[in-house]
């Protein structure tokens, strides 16, 4: 099809080329609009249903709310069964995990990118190769160890396994390799210590990569589900992700969709916020490592 059109146009029939181009354009946009609609539709249903009562959702599962209500949102702050506590648990866990893991990764990445020391390449290659190992193999031993430490149903139980990110180390090292060595040599001659080289020179320069990694790390922890439900079965300490699928009526059978959808909006809000504010960093973070 396409080759014919080009051929025709070359032989001078501009009209045929024009219409085939318009057709391509039309179908291209059609596909993009349909996919955009499909991307957003489930999210639209989520938001719309958060403004309905449970009874209305059953009769009107996707339309505009007829009896618009904010009750689901005030319910978030209820003392009994309010989701705000779980929301805050999730924020605390994700923030601490992000700060510590990015800091550890940045220090190590600095050494791996700007120092030559014995064993550097071997250690780094070994660390990279462990990215192939599914981390789930550590679930049984970590569960055993944490049980013996009394870390079941605690924040540290949920936070500590996320503190090491080999991916983060790899990502930051890639970025730091691109920072010219001369800057550090000059600073050394001016008498800067190693910590200053890292903290006052490398960290500000590598800020874009550090920000991207922080965003990815925050979202990864915020969205995690498996480990929290294993190590913290108590709903009062769980992050919001772990609680959402368990919201049921008094008989414990029917899902309370209005509350669940409102919880989903609440759980998605920080993510969307981060995405809208840091869109460019976000997308550059995603693509590090893939395209090199």
């Amino acid at each position, binding site marked *: 099809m*396409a*080759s014919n059109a*080009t051929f025709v146009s070359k032989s001078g029939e501009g009209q045929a080329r024009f219409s085939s*181009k318009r057709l*391509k354009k039309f179908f*291209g946009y059609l*596909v*993009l609009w349909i*996919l955009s609609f499909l*991307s*957003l539709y*489930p*999210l639209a*249903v*989520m938001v719309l*249903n958060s403004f309905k009562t449970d009874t209305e*959702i*059953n009769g009107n*599962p996707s339309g505009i709310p007829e009896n618009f209500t904010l009750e689901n949102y005030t319910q978030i702050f209820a003392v009994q069964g309010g989701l705000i506590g779980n929301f805050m648990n999730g924020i605390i866990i994700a923030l601490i995990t992000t700060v510590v893991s990015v800091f*550890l*990764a940045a220090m*190590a990445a*600095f*050494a791996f990118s700007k120092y030559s020391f014995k064993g550097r390449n071997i250690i780094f290659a070994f660390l990279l190769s462990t990215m192939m190992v*599914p*981390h*789930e*193999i*550590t*679930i*049984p*031993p*970590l*569960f*055993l160890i944490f*049980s013996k430490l009394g870390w079941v149903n605690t924040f540290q139980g949920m936070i500590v396994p996320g503190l*090491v990110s*080999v991916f983060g180390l790899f990502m930051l090292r890639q970025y730091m390799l691109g920072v010219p060595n001369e800057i550090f040599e000059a600073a050394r*001659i001016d008498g800067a210590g*190693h910590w200053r080289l890292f903290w006052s020179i490398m960290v500000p320069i590598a800020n874009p990569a550090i920000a991207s990694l922080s965003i990815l790390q925050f979202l990864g922890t*915020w*969205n995690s*589900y*498996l480990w929290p439900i*294993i190590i913290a079965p108590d709903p009062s300490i769980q992050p919001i992700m772990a609680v*959402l*699928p*368990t919201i049921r009526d008094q008989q*414990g059978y029917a*899902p309370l969709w209005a509350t*669940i*959808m409102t919880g*989903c909006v609440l*759980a998605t809000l920080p993510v969307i916020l981060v*995405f809208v504010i840091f869109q460019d960093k*976000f997308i550059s973070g*995603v*693509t590090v*490592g893939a*395209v090199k």
Partner: protein
Amino acid sequence: MKENISPVLETGKALPKVKSKVIRNVAWVDRLAPYLFISPFILFFLALFIGPSIYSLVLSFFRYKGYGDATFVGIANYVSILQYHVFWTELVNTIFYWLVHVIPLMVGAFLLAVLVRSKFIKGQRFFKPVLFVPNIVATVAAALVFQSLFGTQYGVINKLLGTQIDWLHDPTITKFVVVLLLIWKGLGWWFIIFLVGLTSINPELEEAATVDGASVRQRLVYIVIPLMRNIFLFAFVIDAINSLRMFTEPNVLVGRSGQLADPEVAPLLNLLISNLRGASFGQASAVGWILFVLTLGITLIQFRILRSSDEER
């Protein structure tokens, strides 16, 4: 050799020699500094990954209930898992989820990237974030929304179609709903990756081919796709690894009230979790290591296939 050393470097090297005492101290600190920088990371890595991994490997040869003595059972844990029919059901499910979603996902994302980058489409700034958004929505939230969309009695899909299909109770149909969720969530991610990959191709190559009369399809097949082979390899390997470790999608979509999904639709990781909950730590660890071997195998096969197709060319 001597001529190669520039005078600047020589003075630069000569400079610190003036204070020889300071130098010795500094040199000692210099040698230690990188180790100090990596040691926190390495310590955590040893404590949270290497240690537990070894512990897990050892555990997989023992019967251990979490208290009392562990009994050495050799490869009995592995044997009993391989003889357990649920293992095979869940393995087949996992491979089904992987194979059925990966082809439409990758082809779709690639064509979408080609489309958005093509000259006659405007509005990249709108389409890029919109198509990417499903990816950042938490898997739990996405799975719950899909659960409500595909409800039998009150679900939107059945309302729209005017049907009463048991989307989430009939295992055969349910598996395709899981695949739909995987594609919905994954498309934006690979779309962005492929888009960046396309942008990294030297535009002169494509222009030269266009001048020589190559069609859009010829340019894709003979220029773009071969140049992006490494990105495809990366995409397929990462997607395979993540598919084998899949847990949240099927369990939240199908599981009732936070319970695990039924074995007919469950992924392999469920066997690890159910063993863990049954306090069979040896068996749970063995499942983990089987998962590792599968990951390794699939990755190696993919490297083989994509590398050898390279050599043929």
